[in-house]
């Protein structure tokens, strides 16, 4: 029982990070029907920039308050990623708006390779460890250990998801985003500058990616130029699992994927009589994805594609 609750906690933490990244995929897909495969790399860049700023600050002011340094890192990563997301859309996707769908997809993979290599050139090939400035308290709840960092990650994710939902459901901009997602032409006819809405969508998604990037590197204590690949793939799977294009779906898919993965990792040894270890945890995430795609191709909360006026 202890291990179950412990893995549930771990899964929720991981899942809320997946959810933040998945939101970026799903928002862009909702509006452009484009899978922005470079989104995982934006997460990585966010982590790298935050770590670079944190490292530099700690080098210059070793006695600086940890929270302040951490905040400075995050606040540097967010606008940098927002700018990156904007530029990616402008340079790599907008010129291909009217091209066949395969073209921007290939470009997305290209952008992702460019970003990985740029990060490798700037920050090197080795793992960068997260300086010990994170909250390190922990509590025991129902026999499971819950760290302060885990609480911060989950609380912040929930707050962000709540804010994003309010933005999309309750504001003029959100309404324009939803209208654009349904019909770009009709949105234009209403006076919506669709290009601006698309840019804003990329910018918001990238801000979430930056935060998620810092979270994941803080959680594992590491960052690496290749870290965006698997994270991006998982988050994309989460978006598909929940029903791509659907915000609530991305949140649900992310959490679910995290929990499935953590439980899988916790029990895989028992299940296979010790034959497979927890390093096979990725199997469960993708197995879940395949099952959903087979039995419910639109994802858990995906709309049936029919009713479009």
């Amino acid at each position: 029982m202890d291990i179950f609750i412990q893995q549930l906690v771990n899964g929720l933490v991981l899942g809320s990070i997946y959810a933040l990244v998945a939101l970026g995929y799903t928002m862009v897909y909702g509006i452009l029907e484009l899978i922005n495969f470079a989104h995982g790399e934006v997460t990585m860049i966010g982590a790298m920039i935050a770590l670079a700023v944190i490292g530099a600050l700690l080098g210059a002011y070793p006695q600086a308050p940890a929270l302040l340094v951490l905040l400075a890192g995050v606040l540097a990563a967010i606008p940098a990623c927002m700018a990156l997301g904007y530029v990616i859309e402008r340079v790599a996707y907008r010129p291909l708006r009217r091209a066949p769908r395969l073209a921007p997809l290939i470009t997305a993979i290209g952008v992702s390779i460019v970003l990985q290599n740029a990060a490798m050139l700037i920050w090197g090939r080795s793992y960068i460890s997260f300086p010990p400035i994170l909250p390190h308290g922990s509590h025991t709840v129902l026999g499971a250990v819950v760290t302060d960092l885990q609480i911060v990650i989950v609380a912040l994710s929930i707050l962000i998801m709540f804010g994003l939902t309010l933005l999309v459901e309750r504001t003029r901009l959100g309404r324009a985003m939803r209208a654009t997602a349904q019909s770009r032409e009709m949105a234009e006819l209403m006076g919506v500058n669709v290009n601006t809405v698309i840019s804003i969508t990329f910018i918001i998604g990238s801000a979430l990616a930056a935060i998620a990037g810092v979270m994941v590197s803080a959680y594992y204590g590491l960052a690496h130029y290749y870290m965006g690949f698997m994270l991006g793939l998982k988050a994309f799977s989460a978006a598909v699992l929940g029903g791509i294009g659907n915000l609530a779906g991305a949140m649900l898919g992310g959490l679910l994927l995290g929990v499935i993965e953590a439980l899988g990792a916790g029990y895989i040894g028992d299940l296979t009589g010790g034959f497979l270890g927890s390093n096979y945890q990725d199997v469960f995430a993708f197995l879940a994805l395949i099952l959903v795609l087979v039995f419910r191709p639109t994802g858990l909360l995906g709309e049936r594609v029919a009713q479009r006026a």
Partner: protein
Amino acid sequence: MSLLEVKDLKVAYGGIRAVRGIDLAIDEGELVCLIGANGAGKSSVLKGLMGLVHHGGEVRFAGARLNGLPTHAIAAKGMALVPEGRGIFARLSVAENLDMGAYTRRDAGQVRLDLNRVYDLFPRLAERRAQLAGTLSGGEQQMLALGRAIMAKPRLMLLDEPSMGLAPLVVRKIYRTIVDIASEGATILLVEQNANLALQVSRRGYVMESGSVALTGASQVLAADPMVKAAYLGE
């Protein structure tokens, strides 16, 4: 000077010339119809005016050239299109669709009054304001599309086939509303295949035939024209 002045408008799709150079002029407060058979190029004219399709010739609206402006900028200048097939946002609520109509407006107080006006015109929309627009019937969707255009408070309203696919009773309701808002001073360009209906409510008309204006004049005169009678009024 007319509110809308169109000179030698041309629209082509690939090699197919849908509109072959037409002139139009609409004065403030007029209800003008554009009739013609299926495929005569009527919808392409409207799409050209809104900048939805690449076009040649010159479009002047309220004195300013519209050529080359993006659609959203043209809409912001006060031109609203109710497209063929209505183009409502199926997954937005009725109220949100109406809000989208007023997207470019900044006069919140007046917008609220206009919203009440739309709900007065179409009580069905008021009843269903929280419902997703995709769940409305065809007639209700047409009401919503028209209401949404009213919410834009446009200087010129372009209506593309508002009677299409609707039951006679609904058509009558829609047309009564069109006449009402026209009598309150709205400027409307009405595109219809149902020439009879369009000529009854409009003051002037243009008859399009394979991409060109074949005939123009007062609607009463057009309705009495032997060629129009034979070709479009089924007499």
